[in-house]
């Protein structure tokens, strides 16, 4: 049994390398259907799809090219059309998920799970390897519990941030949500499972997760933490349960299908005061981080800061050819001029204070002194009223909803190409300075722009580079692919690996974390999922 399974796994692995190196596209069409998973026959695939229809009804299983189309849209570079699913199945209950997983085992049909599937710039609903059927959990969108006293909730995967916010507002519950920048269409469960971030003090999402329900690859249902104790009232209150802590195993992985998740919600503070610090020069990078770090480590500034470059900010609401002519490099003089005209600095760092009148009034002077000494201008709503960038970030830092940043997709042509490159470093000025220099060198070599930000976490930096390109231009698309790979490889060589990556580069990034880590992940995978049916290739795990 295990020999057969290992063979199939070998095939799946070879599928990644083989198809990629041969440049095999999966661009599905009637003439050229998307390839099935390695080892699967047409009869297996049709058998699985038929059985799925028996579980969820024909209208919630998608197999033909037109019906699968919404699942194939991506922003990431994929010049060979490798990351295309062959179908989708959309359950509405946990029992249906269990049944689907059992069918997938019978037919060896791999499933790529998504919650709301808006992993934009990381692959949306596209799988890491060909031949997968998307397990789309968006229909499971119940808000199961909200405890206003404890500040907790229990959600199904398809609940969007918008739904949760609406529920809290309509029921007058004074709790906040914490959103990634694209809250209205994305989900707390999906985002947390990919270890995403937001911008209130609850911004490190996985830290504020508490309890999960998971369908395991054999169809069994497991609850983590206190969830498996009959009568426990603490499933959403106590994270650790007893024995090994396993919740992390289900994030950025393919060990289970999460069907419920508990989250902590921040009580609405009496006072919320957003700030923006403008620094005039690109060279100010290390000063800003050195000034912010002690404020973050001590939690005097409690939320994850976004330190936004002028180019990233301008790309949200402007088109590139409003700043420089088409084909010209995005030079610093033009950038500075455009930034100034729009009330921006070359770096714009956003943070907020949360508390009471007294605590905010006590902390503000300390912070102002520190940031002013770093050469920054400290601004508040009083000075920035009406500025669309300030408005955007002050909305985010109170868990508000908008999609302003989707404007990035129109910076460069109309083709909609975006890949997030997100290497991690310790929160030290010198590291950011070196990262910025290296990133600029690489992207500019390929003719792209350094449109980047730093998320200053508690003690870490996420350097978030939006690699923006015109996907409708085949040459530019290929260049973006090569550029992305060079970014990953050369940053990795300096000890800076990504905290998260798109389906186009999961294998590449996994290699950087080393063979012992990979083997450990693989052993767990093989023990839990001997048939390799859950999301092969996720985080490079087969």
């Amino acid at each position, binding site marked *: 049994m295990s020999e057969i399974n290992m063979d199939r796994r070998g095939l799946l692995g070879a599928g990644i390398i083989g198809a990629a190196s041969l440049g095999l596209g999966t661009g599905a069409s009637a003439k050229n259907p998307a390839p099935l998973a390695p080892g699967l026959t047409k009869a297996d695939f049709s058998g699985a799809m038929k059985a799925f229809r028996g579980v969820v009804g024909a209208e*919630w299983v*998608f197999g033909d090219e037109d019906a699968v*189309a*919404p*699942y*194939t*849209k991506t*922003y990431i570079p994929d010049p060979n059309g490798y990351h295309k699913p062959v179908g*989708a199945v*959309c359950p*509405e209950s946990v029992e249906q998920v269990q049944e689907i997983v059992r069918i997938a085992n019978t037919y060896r049909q791999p499933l790529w799970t998504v919650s*709301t*599937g*808006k992993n*934009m710039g990381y692959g*949306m*609903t596209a799988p890491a390897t060909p031949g997968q059927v998307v397990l*789309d959990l*968006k*229909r*499971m*969108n*119940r*808000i*199961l*519990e*909200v405890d206003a006293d404890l500040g907790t909730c229990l959600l199904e995967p*398809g609940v969007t941030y*918008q*739904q949760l916010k*609406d*529920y809290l507002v*309509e029921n007058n519950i004074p709790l906040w949500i914490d959103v990634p920048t694209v809250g*209205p*269409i994305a989900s707390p469960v999906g985002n947390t499972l990919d270890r995403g971030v937001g911008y209130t003090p609850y911004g490190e999402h996985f830290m504020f997760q508490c309890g999960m329900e998971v369908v395991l690859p054999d169809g069994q249902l497991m609850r983590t933490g206190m969830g498996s104790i009959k009568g426990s009232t603490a499933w959403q209150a106590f994270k650790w349960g007893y024995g090994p802590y396993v919740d992390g195993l289900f994030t950025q992985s393919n060990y289970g299908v999460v069907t419920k998740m508990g989250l902590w919600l921040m009580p609405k503070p009496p006072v919320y005061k957003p700030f923006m610090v403008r620094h005039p020069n690109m060279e100010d990078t290390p000063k800003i981080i050195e000034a912010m770090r002690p404020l973050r480590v001590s939690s005097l500034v409690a939320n994850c800061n976004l330190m936004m470059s002028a180019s990233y900010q301008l790309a949200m*609401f402007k088109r590139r050819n409003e700043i420089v002519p088409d084909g010209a490099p995005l030079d610093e003089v033009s950038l500075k001029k455009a930034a100034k005209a729009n009330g921006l600095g070359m770096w714009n760092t956003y943070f907020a204070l949360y508390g009471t009148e007294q605590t905010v009034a006590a902390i503000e002077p300390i912070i102002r002194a520190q940031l002013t000494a770093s050469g920054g201008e400290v601004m508040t709503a009083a000075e920035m009223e009406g500025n*669309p960038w300030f408005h955007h970030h002050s909305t985010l830092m109170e868990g508000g*909803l*908008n*999609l*302003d940043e*989707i*404007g*990035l*997709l*129109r910076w460069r042509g*109309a*083709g*909609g190409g*975006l890949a997030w490159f997100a290497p991690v470093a310790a929160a030290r000025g010198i590291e950011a300075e070196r990262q910025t220099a290296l990133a600029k060198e690489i992207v500019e070599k390929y003719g792209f722009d350094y449109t980047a930000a730093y998320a200053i976490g508690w003690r870490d930096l996420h350097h978030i580079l939006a690699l923006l390109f015109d996907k*409708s231009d085949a040459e530019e698309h290929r260049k973006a692919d090569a550029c992305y790979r060079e970014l990953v490889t050369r940053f990795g060589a300096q000890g800076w690996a990504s905290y998260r990556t798109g389906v186009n580069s999961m294998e590449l990034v996994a290699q950087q974390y080393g063979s012992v880590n990979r083997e450990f992940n693989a052993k767990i995978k093989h023990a839990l999922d001997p048939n390799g049916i859950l999301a092969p290739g996720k985080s490079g795990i087969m």
Partner: protein
Amino acid sequence: MKRIFGPILAPTLAVAAMACAAPLLASQKLGETQELRAPEAVYAKTCGYCHGRNVGPIILGRAIPADTVKYIVRHGQNGMPAFRPTEVKPSELDALALWIEKSTARSGEHGQ
């Protein structure tokens, strides 16, 4: 043409009218899945975050044919993501597309 589309359009219009009668921001009850939403609500909670806010082009008041709206929603055009039938239900999309086709421009909206 009219005869071909008549029987299809009639129920769609009925759905649209019914949906419009529902409260604008139909609320969700604890433990229940989200109900079908009226076009106005789908627009406010999804499309309108980009369209008319300088992120995506203005789409209200331009008599964009309903079929075009449906195609773009399901395929995603350029920088716009695609929306699946699990996100915007088929009947919600039918009503929304027609509502957009018949809509008038809103003075507060801006963008290209």
